[in-house]
């Protein structure tokens, strides 16, 4: 109870109250409220800071949480989530676009050699953190595990010690070495300031991770919102996304 009510209240508070038509006043820049998956934090902070057509207020949370907030009417103009399919549950939206892709990797603490390949995840005694199956990172992880032979999958499942509500939680548990390895996005490792190392998952096992963007129909700044989404695929957006370890779709 505390979590959801507080979460919604905080989201609304952090997104701020709208200026009630104040934008119509001359010379006032409109403000876009953008809800984005936590894994987009560093890329979005850079891109939004340089976005010229509107002020941007960013609110980061897990993709499922953001979707639920948007569906329950939180003041959001643009939604950016780590699973385009989620956007169907966000209420009335304009066309959705895929603006970036990411890869699933195994993150280990920098300098650790307990885990050197995805095969080590199934070794007895290895401690693994994953995302909850109710979060996008958890669903991608599930697809990776489902691509493995059943005995290996079961062995890894036995080694999972925590199912975090989002990728940031998994990163945290690996960073403090509560676990030997965690399954996260490649961009999480890129932005970990050297605390984590990535072990790639072979291409045929790794699920395609895509980020979806949508403008909510109830926005009062549709032009700026559309420009914000389109710009993500432009030069500035691509550069910011790539610096954060994300790829062009």
């Amino acid at each position, binding site marked *: *109870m*505390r*979590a*959801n*009510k507080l*979460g919604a209240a905080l989201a609304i508070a952090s997104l701020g109250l709208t200026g009630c038509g104040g934008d119509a006043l001359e010379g006032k820049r409109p403000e876009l409220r953008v809800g984005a998956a936590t894994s987009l934090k560093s890329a979005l902070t850079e891109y939004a800071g340089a976005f010229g057509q509107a002020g941007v207020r960013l609110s980061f949370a*897990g*993709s*499922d*949480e953001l*979707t*639920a907030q948007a569906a329950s009417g939180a003041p959001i103009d643009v939604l950016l989530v780590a699973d385009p399919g989620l956007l169907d549950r966000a209420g009335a939206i304009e066309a959705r676009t895929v603006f970036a892709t990411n890869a699933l990797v195994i993150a280990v603490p920098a300098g650790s050699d307990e885990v050197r390949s995805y095969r080590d995840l199934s070794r007895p005694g290895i*401690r693994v*953190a994953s995302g*909850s199956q*109710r*979060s996008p990172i958890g669903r991608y992880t599930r697809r990776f595990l489902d691509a493995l032979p059943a005995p290996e999958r079961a062995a890894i499942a036995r080694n*999972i*010690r*925590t*199912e*975090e*509500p989002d990728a940031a*939680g998994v990163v*945290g*548990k690996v960073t*403090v*070495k*509560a*676990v030997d390895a965690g399954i996260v996005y490649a961009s999480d490792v890129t932005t970990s300031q050297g605390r984590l190392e990535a072990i790639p998952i072979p291409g045929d096992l790794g699920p395609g991770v895509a980020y979806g963007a949508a403008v909510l129909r109830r926005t009062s700044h549709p032009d700026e919102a559309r420009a914000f989404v389109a710009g993500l695929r432009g030069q500035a957006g691509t550069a910011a996304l790539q610096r954060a370890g994300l790829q062009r779709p």
Partner: protein
Amino acid sequence: MSAVSPFRVVAAGALALLVAFLALPVVAIFVEQSPGELIGALDDPGALDALWLSLQTSLAAVVILVVVGTPAAWLLATRRFRGHALLVTVLELPLVLPPAVAGIALLACFSADGLLPTGNLLVLQTAGVIVALTFVAAPFYLRAAQAAFESVDRSWLDASRTLGAGEARTFARIAIPAALPGLIAGVALGWGRALGEFGATLMFAGSFRGITQTAPLAIYERFGTDFTGALALSAVLIVLSAALLLTVKSGVARLGTR
């Protein structure tokens, strides 16, 4: 017959406002879904595991608090020494810490690189949940217990000693019975806080069904994808907490009239 003073009207208005503000969100949980849907959503082994784990770990935390906290509170209530005020402040600190800070602090202390590495004993383990709950709930019990002991009539304690009873006997036979209503109220507060703990548990103990996923964590996990399930678990927690408060209050009232 005296007229109702304007102040009385203002105070009554404030009370009505407060009741509406505090009770309405709680009522909303039960109104948002039909009772049938709420009960149906509880037919989820993960939810029941979470409730059961919450009960076990919060009870364990309360037992630890009572066993360790009661004599400690007695000492704080009956002795004045250098650094007394500082010590009390240190013990009260978790009361004002954001739970996320409590979680980080516990990690900084007990994780592999921490001040007091505990290996795999606490982090991501049920024992870690109990540690987190005890950490955040401790000040609630300690404050109540200290206040309860302080309000025990000194002359009873002096009389007990004059009659030759040692401190242990005085503590057990005079102080605890006299302070009992306050101690029980402290148990209720601490237990309620432990039942509701979220942030420190998630950061320190993680979230794994049956091992570390308590009811508040299960509610958070369901928020994005299963709102009805989240509401149902919330409703159960409200009923549990209210029952706890009511039981304690009626128990204390009975003690008071004894």
